[in-house]
């Protein structure tokens, strides 16, 4: 009997200690791991710790709005700041899973490049869906119109196995100005037009699903052109010395954002970290490891010119790009995915 009581007391005590530990826990920041998070850790998290003395604990995740829902549902579960993709940001914000941010506490709107400031998130990394091509088989810098022109450059092309980004590319190739792409795509005729354009090269299309595939398809000679994330192309050119080219004009841009979970007990510390993360000096070190597009407007001028040339935020790379419209895709992804599946299976 005594034993049982003792056990109960001990476990109660353990619970109290655990609860106390949880309420005064360290600041936890969650990103995507790999060299991406390594870059963020070296440029931001560690210098922040050194400067402020606030301990930062790192965790990683593989994205998914369901994960955020689960983390928030039962109260604080150990995460404060999360590196979220743009759709997760949009949905989590609408569902009230993350806190609306006070931009003035983060250095003000002008501190950031356009498009990096959202009601509930602040830009963490910018990346583009670009056109990449094999220089040995495509003589001049191609456009999206060339991508859809089988006569000019024969050979197969690769696109991502998803309507998202491809419908935009098809309309751009069909002559729709960047500013009108989503206006056109919001009409049934616009969707038909995009699919009709895709029809013209359907016989020569190969589809990729994982981010590493486009460069593999180019390397093996399977395709002459492909869509790809910009970082993969830059790495293939700089590290693997492949004869590939990257086209920044008419590329589609999107951003990962830092968000603060609504259950975070460390909101003040989180703001402090995010303010630091938005400053020019730490941001200027982000691209040292990986070509991450930075979000601080002032840091752009501080980056070494040879690194800057490969970033989405370099002036000559960002002069003619389209921001992916997440609100459009959240509304239309189901209907267009079904249509895409039907189209691609025919």
């Amino acid at each position, binding site marked *: 009997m005594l034993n049982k009581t003792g056990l109960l007391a001990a476990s109660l005590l353990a619970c109290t200690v655990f609860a106390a530990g949880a309420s005064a826990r360290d600041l936890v920041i969650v990103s995507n791991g790999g060299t991406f998070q390594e870059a963020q850790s070296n440029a931001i998290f560690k210098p922040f710790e050194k400067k402020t003395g606030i301990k930062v604990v790192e965790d990683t995740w593989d994205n998914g709005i369901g994960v955020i829902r689960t983390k928030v549902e039962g109260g604080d579960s150990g995460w404060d700041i999360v590196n979220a993709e743009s759709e997760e940001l949009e949905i989590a914000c609408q*569902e009230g899973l993350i806190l609306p941010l006070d931009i003035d506490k983060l250095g003000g709107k002008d501190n950031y490049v356009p498009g990096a400031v959202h009601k509930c998130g602040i830009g963490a990394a910018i990346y583009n869906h670009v056109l990449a091509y094999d220089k040995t088989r495509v003589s001049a810098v191609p456009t999206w119109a060339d991508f859809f022109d089988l006569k000019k450059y024969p050979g197969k092309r690769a696109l991502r196995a998803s309507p998202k980004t491809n419908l935009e590319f098809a309309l751009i190739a069909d002559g729709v100005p960047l500013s009108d792409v989503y206006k056109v795509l919001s009409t049934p005729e616009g969707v038909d037009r995009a699919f009709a354009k895709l029809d013209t090269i359907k016989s020569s299309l190969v589809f990729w699903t994982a981010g590493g595939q486009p460069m593999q398809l180019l390397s093996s000679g399977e395709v002459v052109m492909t869509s790809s994330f910009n970082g993969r192309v830059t790495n293939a050119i700089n590290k693997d010395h492949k004869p590939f080219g990257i086209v920044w004009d008419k590329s589609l841009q999107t951003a990962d954002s830092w968000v603060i979970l609504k259950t975070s007990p460390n909101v003040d510390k989180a703001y402090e970290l995010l303010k630091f993360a938005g400053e020019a000096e730490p941001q200027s070190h982000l691209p040292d490891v990986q070509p991450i597009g930075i979000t601080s407007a002032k840091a752009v001028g501080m980056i070494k010119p040879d690194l800057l040339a490969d970033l989405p935020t370099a002036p000559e790379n960002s002069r003619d790009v389209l921001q992916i419209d997440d609100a459009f895709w959240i509304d239309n992804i189901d209907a267009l995915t079904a249509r895409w599946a039907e189209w691609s299976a025919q």
Partner: protein
Amino acid sequence: MFKGQRGGLLRSYALIAPLFLFLLATFLLPVGMILWRSVFDPELRAALPATAVELSSWSGQGLPPAAAYTALAGDLRNVDGASLASLSRRLSYENPGFRALLQSTKRKLEAAPAGVTPDLATLDPQWRANSTWQAMKRAAGPVGTFHILSALDLRRNYETGIGPARPGAALYRSIILRTFAIASTTAVLALVLAFPLCAFLARQSDRVRNLLLLMVLLPFWTSILVRTTAWLALLQDRGVINTLLMEMGLIDQPMKLLYNRIGVITALVHVMLPFMIFPLLASMRSIDPRLFRAALSLGATPLYAFRRVYLPQVMPGVMAGTLMVFVVTLGFYVTPMLVGGPGDQMISYYIALYTTGTLNWGLASSLGLILLVVTLLLYAVQNALLRRSGVGVR
């Protein structure tokens, strides 16, 4: 005596209890929870509770009674952003315009002076359309058939009955058919390849057989991803096979072996072959070879003896192997994704897409449910056929 028996029974229950509880917690419960999502339709009821009640009692024909309009106006004023966002997502499965409609109606209602409820029909003409209200009624929950019907390309119309979800829609039905076609082709080809091999292996000495089996086992122990990627290297336009054939002058143009059905079936048969070989070999080794010789000595032709003596004895192995390959192939994901084209993706690809990509869990679990039901049906049919022919699977 009776007491002792009951004690034994209880003891045996107690013995299997851990396994049963383990299965319950790690298999039955999660599967049940996922399948529950195929009929669970809670978003509208959570966001617009009074409207949901009105919609449930409305017949779905013409326009709903005035009470439904009043309920909707009241609900829309009270609903919080999060619930409205979830509802918009749910209704966008039917019509992407619902988010804009709900948001703008809510804004206009809030802009109206206090105490005055404007007529919804004047706020937006869509509220005068039967189709708008039908879509709401289909989502009124808490349980409904919308997701399951969607997974069969069907939709329930309260005026005209169940019909196609979109004109000419047959997306998921064709994907389900394609999945079964790929799985059965794989099973048959694996059987054709494995049968002579197993017959050969069964006649070898233990030493030789074990050595040869090792060559089956080595690829079996290799990750599926690695084996599939190897096929990429072999089959692509400038891959090993095409380069070899072109240099030998047998073909001028590379053959299309990748990103189509040929590639998928080739890679799948290779991956699944061990699942066929092991049960088949086991049943062939258990056969007494003297029976076949006895049949020959009694005057049967070799073909007759094969058909009437040998085949019935290996039939359990054939059935077990075929069923194993068929069922495992049904759920394949990574191999068709890497070596197949968009027309070769199987149902698991779409389940994964809707689970993690678009977060349409209702549709994902409905597709899973259909796959499960059809598989169980086929299994039952096969079992019944076997029983009639007098050969059990086990």
